[in-house]
């Protein structure tokens, strides 16, 4: 659905969409107490997508969960369509308008603080890219979340190690990520970001009382499509018709194998 949407729109963030798709599916199908029916409930869980550019993946997951018709995805990027290339609150299911990087975590802190003030039980999740961590505002927020002991806040880092220019370690190295977040006072978990069981376990509850949780999800940019995996140009590459056909074929085959395994 994500790839089809990007193909239809003629633009989009392909690689990062595929790297975080499993995380989004896990969040919206297994973790978040958010549904089209309860979206107006002040006690719903909150999800803010800091890496707003992976919007096609988010739209696809929201459509799949019934927030809006799948057919709406055909309008992404079109004249007068609210389905613009980064999340906006005009779209059912989206909490905040994001797209400029380094914004999701501070917003998430405000939301988590509001929950604490109100004695509400909802949890707050935000998804960041690893390249995004070069934005200084993340580290301002890193201090504040630990200072306020926001164990109702979980930051997930889509650790695909690639950004638009190339490998993140060449553009602006940020390793060791786990040690950095631990030093900031966070409880850190490192998981395979394509392993549903591992993601579910890590996301199901806060890692440690009194500490915000940072989940470093090791992912593969362009996951599931042989010619896109770990190739920087697919950050916002748009597949041709032939490439789309091959990609969908590969994903379908992988889906079948997965289904057989689970059966």
């Amino acid at each position, binding site marked *: 659905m994500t790839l089809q949407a990007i193909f239809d729109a003629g633009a989009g963030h392909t690689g990062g969409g595929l790297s975080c798709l499993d995380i989004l599916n896990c969040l919206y199908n297994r973790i978040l107490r958010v549904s089209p029916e309860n979206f107006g409930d002040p006690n719903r869980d909150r999800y803010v997508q800091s890496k707003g550019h992976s919007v096609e993946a988010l739209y696809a997951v929201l459509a799949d969960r019934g927030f809006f018709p799948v057919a709406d995805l055909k309008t992404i990027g079109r004249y007068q369509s609210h389905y613009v290339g980064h999340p906006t609150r005009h779209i059912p299911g989206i909490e905040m308008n994001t797209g400029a990087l380094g*914004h999701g975590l501070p917003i998430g802190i*405000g*939301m988590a*603080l509001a*929950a604490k003030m109100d004695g509400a039980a909802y949890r707050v999740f935000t998804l960041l890219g690893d390249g995004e961590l070069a934005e200084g505002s993340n580290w*301002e927020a890193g201090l*504040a979340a630990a200072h306020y002991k926001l164990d109702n806040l979980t930051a997930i880092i889509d650790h695909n190690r690639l950004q638009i220019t190339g490998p993140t370690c060449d553009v602006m190295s940020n390793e060791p990520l786990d040690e950095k977040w631990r030093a900031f006072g966070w409880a850190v978990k490192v998981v395979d970001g394509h392993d549903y069981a591992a993601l579910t376990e890590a996301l199901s509850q806060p890692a440690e009382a009194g500490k915000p949780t940072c989940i470093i999800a090791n992912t593969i940019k362009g996951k599931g499509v042989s010619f896109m995996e770990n190739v920087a140009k697919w950050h916002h590459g748009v597949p041709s018709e032939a490439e789309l056909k091959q990609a969908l074929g590969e994903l379908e085959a992988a889906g079948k194998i997965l289904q057989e395994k689970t059966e």
Partner: protein
Amino acid sequence: MFTPAAKAMAEKLGLKMGRANLEEFAATLEELAKANPNIVAVTSDSRGSGKLAPFGKALPKQIVEVGIAEQNLVGITAGLAACGKKSFGVSPSCFLTARSLEQIKNDICYSDVPAVLVGISSGTSYGALGTTHHSLHDLAVLRAINNLTILVPADNFESRQAILAAAKAVKPVFVRFGKAAMFGLHKPETKFEVGKAITLREGNDVAFIATGETVVHALLAAGQLAERGLNCRVLSMHSIKPLDADAILQAGRECRAVVTVEEHMVNGGLGEACAAVLLQAGVHVPFKIVGMPDEETVPGAQADIFRHYGISMEGLSELGEKLIR
């Protein structure tokens, strides 16, 4: 701030010295927050300069300290507002509206959360600290952002009214305060309405359209010009956005000259906003924008800077007279 002649004029006009608008803001916010536990102040090591130390003591559960981190301050203010809090992000205007401009644009205005941003010690309030601490750009940059009400109160009355209006607003609001003690300009029964200028003095010779801490100087200038036989109009344009186009057009059509006055750079502030309203309506009138020119601002205290750029009773009356004689 005032020459002996200006002080004498203030006395003649019956103006009484009040406190700093910032103090009026802090007292009003504390009063509102005591009645409404949903009100939260967010500060960036700025509760002292924001006069919010008493608020913090009285209502420790309703203040969030973020440290010296203005981007984080605005993001957190937005997140609080998105989850039902009436949040007031309070930080020096120089930092708030420059360093965290992207957060204001996206997290507050584009996301459309009912947060209030309070730019403290705005304009040249931090005078002698230099340009790093001046906010002479804030109205220009914020005017260019959709979905933000911009209020610049002139005295304690307007400050209180602006905070009362901001607390009720369901859309984003920015309010700008200075830290010098201000003369009271209004009678208590005056009506304050967002988007409507307050007429402080009627007249059809020169119209002074002023905002914030400059309004008193325009009023004094009108007093001085009255002694020279000229009847001047004075408008307090506390609402920069939405702007009272009707009052501006009326001034342009009825008066012989229009002078705008602001504690802001002449680019992109009140003056250019008024010029756009007048020109687009085909109103051509002798017109002058008084503010800080596009140069490195002269060093000095706020009073020195005002005087240097003609924001004083003497400077404004001389300019007004020159425009019509």
